[in-house]
């Protein structure tokens, strides 16, 4: 057999791929379909205060990446203010500063978080110091009273916290509780009281402030819950729920006492928050149920990578599929495209812009580039400087499109930035040579052909299903590898060979 080596290699690769895939799909029960709960949330904080006319300084807590939330985008709108961010203890904060502020000041802080059911590597927690209770006299006695009641009823720290929260959230509080809450029954107050009582018992606890991510909440209030240091890790307890477990849609913003923001050099500080579900499909994540993470084989899987890296691999791992599609197109069907992998690269750019916008942007950028290239032809430039000129024009065109579409309020135009400009430049150059040598018709034919291929490649690569499968079952790439090996030795007719040689299909005379 002529290609035995090849067939064996392809079969081995494919069976390894299928084997690992089946093991993961059937034995480990990794999901074959993307988890529908993946989502993004946009949170906005608006801060206003009246400046005194002198220097002003505003300190604002900002959230940090923490399982299961990843901040995928954030921006500050604060005209004229200097901005620095810093990590302080468990918190991050941003400091806005200005030398001279007059009148009402408005600052915005906006971020997008991605929530996943992914359980990432847990960070090592530093042993926290015990914060002494600051209760005095009557209140100390009341707290001691509560503690004396629940301590004998509890088995460990966890049950103690639960019993305590039960008392603090009872609809009819007992005297000691009523005394400590002091007529205020806000959650923050309850959480703080709980922390004080736990401190009294020598248990380390802290207040967590955050927001609840619910659909389109224009005027969100901060929500607070408790974290207790048990068995070398912080455990969350939310008094708001029956089971005291922290709901999955609670986003921790900062820890410890203190308001969200405080201002120096201003007064009447007001903060308002809004939460909205953001619909940015490009940011969606392929995710896996948490139980899978415990399995040993997965210790070496993509999920052990940081979430940001996973997001990158989600794109990278789909590229071979697009390339495989191109292989079939070229070697089995016989279509020609400009540049071997150019359509796949364009398709990757489309994931940022969406298809329709992508095609429009591509067409506009290429057309402008071609016009400039045509004009440069008259100036008789040497090749490399000419290519650089076209590249600069391509970049400027992209920038102009972004600015204009932003002015017109079209969000999509801003996504042009990831368009592969070098590829675009080379495409312009190739197209203009084809134009010169083979005429405008051939150029248009090849150009449109390449766009169509790019669009098809986009739909193959950029969908939740492909991304999910590629990230969870990267071993399937071995099947693509063996498929490519086989096509590499495919010596049958290409589909387009058939019409080309049609005249040779008659009977030999």
């Amino acid at each position: 057999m002529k290609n035995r080596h090849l067939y064996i290699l392809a079969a081995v690769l494919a069976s390894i791929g299928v084997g690992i895939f089946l093991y993961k799909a059937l034995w480990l029960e990794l999901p074959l379909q993307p988890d529908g709960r993946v989502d993004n949330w946009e949170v906005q904080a608006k801060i206003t205060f009246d400046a005194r006319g002198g220097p002003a300084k505003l300190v604002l807590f900002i959230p940090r990446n923490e399982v299961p939330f990843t901040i995928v985008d954030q921006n500050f709108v604060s005209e004229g203010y200097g901005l620095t961010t810093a990590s302080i203890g468990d918190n991050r904060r941003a400091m806005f500063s200005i030398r001279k502020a007059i009148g009402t000041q408005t600052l915005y802080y906006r971020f997008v978080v991605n929530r996943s059911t992914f359980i990432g590597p847990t960070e090592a927690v530093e042993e926290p110091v015990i914060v002494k209770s600051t209760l005095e006299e009557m209140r100390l006695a009341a707290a001691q009273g509560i503690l004396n009641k629940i301590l004998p009823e509890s088995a460990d720290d966890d049950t103690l916290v639960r019993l305590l929260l039960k008392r603090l959230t009872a609809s009819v509080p007992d005297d000691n509780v009523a005394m400590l809450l002091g007529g205020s029954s806000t959650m923050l107050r309850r959480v703080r009281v709980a922390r004080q009582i736990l401190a009294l018992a020598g248990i380390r606890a802290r207040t967590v402030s955050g927001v609840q991510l619910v659909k389109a909440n224009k005027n969100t209030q901060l929500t607070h819950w408790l974290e207790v240091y048990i068995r070398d890790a912080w455990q969350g307890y939310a008094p708001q729920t029956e089971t005291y477990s922290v709901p999955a849609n609670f986003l921790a913003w900062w820890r410890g006492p203190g308001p969200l923001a405080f201002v120096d050099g201003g007064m009447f500080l007001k903060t308002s928050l809004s939460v909205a579900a953001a619909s940015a499909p490009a940011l969606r994540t392929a995710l896996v149920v948490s139980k899978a993470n415990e399995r040993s084989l997965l210790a070496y899987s993509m999920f052990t990578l940081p979430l940001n890296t996973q997001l990158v691999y989600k794109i990278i791992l789909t590229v071979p599929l697009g390339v495989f599609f191109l292989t079939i197109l070229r070697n089995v069907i016989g279509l020609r495209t400009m540049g071997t992998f150019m359509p796949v690269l364009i398709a990757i750019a489309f994931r940022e812009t969406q298809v329709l916008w992508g095609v429009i942007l591509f067409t506009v950028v290429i057309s402008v580039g071609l016009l400039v290239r045509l004009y440069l032809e008259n100036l008789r430039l040497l090749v490399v400087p000419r290519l650089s000129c076209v590249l600069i024009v391509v970049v400027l065109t992209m920038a102009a499109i972004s600015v204009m579409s932003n002015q017109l309020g079209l969000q999509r135009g801003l996504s042009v930035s990831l368009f592969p400009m070098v590829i675009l430049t080379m495409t312009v150059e190739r197209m203009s040579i084809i134009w010169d040598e083979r005429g405008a018709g051939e150029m248009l034919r090849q150009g449109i052909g390449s766009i169509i291929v790019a669009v098809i490649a986009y739909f193959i690569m950029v969908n939740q299903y492909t991304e999910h499968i590629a990230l969870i079952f990267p071993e399937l790439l071995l099947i693509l590898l063996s498929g490519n090996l086989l096509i590499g030795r495919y010596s049958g007719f290409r589909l387009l060979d058939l019409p080309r040689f049609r005249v040779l299909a008659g009977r030999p005379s």
Partner: protein
Amino acid sequence: MFGLARQLWRNGVVGINKRNADYILVHNPRKYFPLVDDKLLTKEIAEKVGISVPTLYGKIEFPHEVRSFSSIVANRADFVVKPAQGSGGDGILVVVGRMGEYFRLADGSMIDNRDMAFHLNNILAGTFSLGGQPDKVLVEYKVDFDPVFEKITFRGVPDIRIVVFLGVPVMAMVRLPTRLSRGKANLHQGAIGAGIAIPSGRTLTAVLKNSVVSEHPDTNNPVMDVEIPSWNILLDMAARSCDLTHLGYQGIDIVLDRARGPLLLELNARPGLNIQIANREGLRHRLELVAARVAELNTAADRVRFAKENFWPNPVS
């Protein structure tokens, strides 16, 4: 569709994948490609073994040498400028006359000195070369083609392509420029190709794009049954070319000069498959016959004799 594929297979038609996978990749070691991809090298080795080539007037390898172009062509009325590593005839300028600052090209257009210098720089920068790597410019003798094709060609230079497998010429055609191909002997661009019967050296019907024609589209003269002069010399050149390049499967392009006879124009490591349409016959049966019998064929003369005995045209109807 599968019926069509089966019929083509039965008729021995070789598709692109088959050519690449079973002939080029198997019989053409990559290390010998530069010999045929660089026309300057081809010229040098051909001259070494006594195969005639168009005389080289001069070469330009670096941009600063572009100035020397005027001295290369100082007292020449006609010449050809071509990239050493061009493909498909791209970047070739055929100068047929001069008027002061101007060059008259084969297609009737005129360009001046500055256009020419620009074109030379473009060639050097690799605009026309495979993969865009820097290239050289060849300035060479413009073939004064044999009158045998005068009536069936429109401007440009007709050339003869012979596909050679393991040293045996297996199939041949003559490529005749048309108005459509703008004087280029390139079938993709609309030149017509007429098959040549290997034993007799006489032309068969021709192909224009993918359809069969028997007359030249511009001159309306019949293209069939034209006898190629010095056909045996051509076959001998083809049979010897593989010793030159060590490529098992290659195309050899030859032009017929009025005064100097057959001249080797270039060699091709990836010859196109349209020659099958020009001959209305598939290549595979001939290639397989050669592969089976090549062991008995020791000299170029043996291989030519073998070809003349076995490759009578057998076109499909």
